[in-house]
């Protein structure tokens, strides 16, 4: 089956050096509009650097990152980032937190209200609307952070092991939440994880990075129907395959 969606993001020969240390070596790939892409790789291979480059938090040594054919710029494009560590603003309540990015972008008041309401109801956060982060459970807080990211209607949503520190039950639940939101809103997502099962569960396509300096070792397309079953034979086969590719020992 040929993917007919247009290209949203184009990464061309992206290279990053810290002094003499080559972290990212000439990486090129494309992301389709509305695609769910997972990036896996061995620990310490430069996944976070990779994501920091995509989010323009740091500058590449050479190479380009294009969104809709233009160089990515956080001021012009809507980028959203869900960080590994808790990142809600403790002085804002849930509603204000979700609204944060829209405030920065100076979205019109009416649109702002509409979008915040939509996200709140999609995420089932109505009863927490006026709560502050320290009053929420970890999973509710993370749901609100994810909601904040989706609320920006991002051109590109970057997620850096957002469930790294959660227990299995919570992770399953939040993985389904993210898939639901992604389907509903058609956002382009890049999801970084070291958990291969998570990657196979979520992604349409997986990019496997090699050991440092990171290159794209392989691309794996996953066309399993959703909701996916982690015990399904095909699922297990793909998972094993990806695991073998990632082994560096």
């Amino acid at each position: 089956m040929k993917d007919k969606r247009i290209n949203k993001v184009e990464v061309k020969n992206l290279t990053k050096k810290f002094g003499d240390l080559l972290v990212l070596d000439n990486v090129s790939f494309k992301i389709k509009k509305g695609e769910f892409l997972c990036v896996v790789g061995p620990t310490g291979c430069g996944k976070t650097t990779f994501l920091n480059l995509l989010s323009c938090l740091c500058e590449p040594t050479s190479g380009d990152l294009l969104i809709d054919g233009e160089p990515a710029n956080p001021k012009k494009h809507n980028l959203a980032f869900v960080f590994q560590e808790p990142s809600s603003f403790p002085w804002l309540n849930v509603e204000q937190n979700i609204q944060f990015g829209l405030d920065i972008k100076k979205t019109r008041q009416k649109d702002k209200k509409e979008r915040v309401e939509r996200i709140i109801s999609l995420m089932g956060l109505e009863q927490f609307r006026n709560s502050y982060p320290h009053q929420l459970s970890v999973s509710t807080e993370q749901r609100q952070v994810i909601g904040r990211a989706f609320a920006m209607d991002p051109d590109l949503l970057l997620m850096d092991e957002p469930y790294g520190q959660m227990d299995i039950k919570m992770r399953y639940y939040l993985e389904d939440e993210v898939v639901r939101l992604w389907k509903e809103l058609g956002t382009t997502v890049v999801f970084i994880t070291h958990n291969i099962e998570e990657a196979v569960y979520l992604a349409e396509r997986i990019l496997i990075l090699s050991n440092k300096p990171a290159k794209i070792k392989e691309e794996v397309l996953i066309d399993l129907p959703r909701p996916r079953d982690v015990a399904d034979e095909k699922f297990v086969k793909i998972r094993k395959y990806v695991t073998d590719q990632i082994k560096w020992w």
Partner: protein
Amino acid sequence: MNKNKTENTLLKRDKWKYGVIIPVLTVVIFLIIWELMVRVGVIPQRYLPKPSELGNVFIDKLSNPRPEDSTLPSNILSSLQVSLSGFLVAVVLGIPLGWFIGWYKGINRFVRPIFEIIRPIPPIAWIPLTILLLGIGFRAKVFIIFFSAFVPCVINSYTGIKLTNITLINVAKTCGASYFQILTKVGIPSSLPMVFAGIRIALGASWASLVAAEMLAADSGLGFMIMMGRQFTRPDLIVLGMVVIGLIGALFAFILSKLEKKMVRWRSIK
């Protein structure tokens, strides 16, 4: 429901017990011990008045301008004017200065060295120069108070903004916020708890350096009253001045903590 209610009354009882009864009790016991010490003669009455006398002096001093030619209310008023003016100027200048030093590297490079040298100079050391520059009037006293309150304001708002969580800054950055927007939307709100701690220290410092400031030949004020008490050998006047300074300082701290709870609400409600 019923259980909740009993819990509530328990809480109320605790509040009454720990918030009112015990503090009052400790103060009363302290006063009794003081009274006994003086009555028994451990401390001669010439040097320290009995607390029971203090009440009389207080009432008398409300309307009696002698010996220092100023009644207690006008002393309090004049002291409040001086210390609050100095304190407010320090807050208004010091806190934004701390924010800017902490946020902008350029400002940090230029201002920080000067600030680091000025910082250790005790407020009292400014007195002689102040007299030469500003004389001994209202402005001179405000200036002394200002210096004692300015330093904690700057340091705390500087530290507070330096402690801003880098992840939160990155969230704003990826949203496309400018450096100034990140300052106002992330840096300043996250520094507020520290800023309030600084304001509290500054208020204490400005009230505490009052006596020093009023050594500059004042003609009224609580510090002035204490100084005059020494000259006229009136220990009762000295102690009255000290007690009033203490009470007003405590009152300030109380009002400020209430205000802080309101302003930094996201931290206090559980």
